């Protein structure tokens, strides 16, 4: 079972206490966006074998949305961070680089 630390209330939460919310850091396209941009926003996902960034909600806790950095092939958790950001914070990225040199995810590394 996954255990993620909620970055808001600090609780080490079991998977059963959380709701998965899909891929993180999507650009939410709106009116005026091109068809391609809207198509990618709605349907295209990174689905990586390896490092991934996701949204989770501490549903049966403080109720807040947060982000997690996780490996989809080993289930290793690299860290969690608050949702008020458009990209993963530097310390999380450094931690991933240490564990998985050469990783990429979209334009981040």
């Amino acid at each position: 079972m996954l255990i993620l630390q909620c970055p808001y209330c600090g609780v080490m939460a079991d998977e059963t206490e959380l709701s998965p919310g899909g891929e993180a850091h999507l650009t939410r396209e709106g009116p005026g966006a091109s068809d391609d941009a809207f198509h990618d926003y709605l349907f295209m996902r990174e689905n990586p074998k390896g490092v991934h960034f996701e949204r989770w909600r501490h549903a049966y806790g403080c109720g807040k949305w947060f982000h997690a950095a996780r490996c989809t092939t080993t289930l290793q958790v690299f860290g969690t961070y608050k949702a008020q950001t458009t990209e993963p914070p530097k310390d999380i990225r450094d931690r991933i680089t240490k564990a998985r040199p050469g990783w990429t995810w979209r334009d981040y590394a």
Partner: protein
Amino acid sequence: MKRYSAFAIAREAFRAHTGWDKAWARAEPKRRYDVIIVGAGGHGLATAYYLGKNFGITNVAVLEKNWLGGGNTGRNTTIIRSNYLQDPSAAIYEKSRSLYEHLSQDLNYNVMFSPRGVMMLAQTQHEIRGYQRTAHANALQGVKTEFITPERVKELCPIIELKGPRYPVLGALWQERGGTARHDAVAWGYARACSDMGMDIIQNCEVTGVRTEAGKVQGVSTTLGEIDCAKLGVVVAGHSGALADMAAFRLPIESVALQALVSEPIKPCMDVVVMANTVHGYMSQSDKGEMVIGGGADGYNNYTQRGSFHHIEETVRALVETFPMISRLKMLRQWGGIVDMTGDRSPILSKTPVENMFMNCGWGTGGFKAIPGSGWGFAELMATGESALCAEFSLDRFREGRFIDESVAAGVAH
């Protein structure tokens, strides 16, 4: 290929079973093939088989990174049905189910198709309306299903508890000619028939790159060297995204874990397949006597082919309420597979941005039942460039808003 028959068994009995051939030949990759299929699971082997049988294309290699049929073909709950709501789904799943009816004879390999009947329980008012609608849709599609009463449910499946405290059984969608088959035998039977047509089935050969030139596929790089091809079919379920990445395009797919489990074997007590979608559980009894149980998929991306305890707990808790007699059963084994989920929960059988490269993926949690139909349609698409069976399942349906929305129609289990 020596045919399997009662006579062959008698013949071999008299000579200490020394005359049986290997079911398929061990092959080394050639430099070039007309068609390369990546993935020797049910769908990939079925595609190769119908390429040979229906279109005479036999210069074919099927590449498999592990062992044949060791992915989701060996990790499902073997349920076969075609009671889908949308027309394109009903067409391809019913084609598939009807091919299963004679598959053993066609392949000369006993796939143990058992049309024991599949019932999907209606346990809420919403489900009653939903399944009645599906039954009407099926009548128009020529798929034989009916909506049955709780009394008939009890008659067909005596171990069921109709008056469960949370979710009483209010009726069911019943497909009499649905059922199960022996999952490994389906892969093995297709492999044997492909090998017999002269195709190369190459195991332990992982594709590491897709070579293209001017937007056209040239071949693949593998752990056993470079192999050229005129056409490439990719049929790798949960790992489709990785293969698409090699050819520099993206897929609207996410890979998650789906798990199942079996109990210790018990005496025959249930001769139908029961699916309870409201409570996320389905169950049938295997020929060995084990209760085969499946549940919901994980909600997050995962490539580990493992399951998680809380999903087992959820599934079993729900089923114990519907089948109180299983409460004392010990669970024997549990396994997980990586399923490829699309946004509308329908598969993708399509051309791709790379010319002569084709994808067959997105079967999500319900691919086993579709193996023969998927192979039939995908072989037609690869051989001729057109297939009525696959037309609606193209990759551009997401851009154009032509969803085949089974995520709403099928509820949960799919």
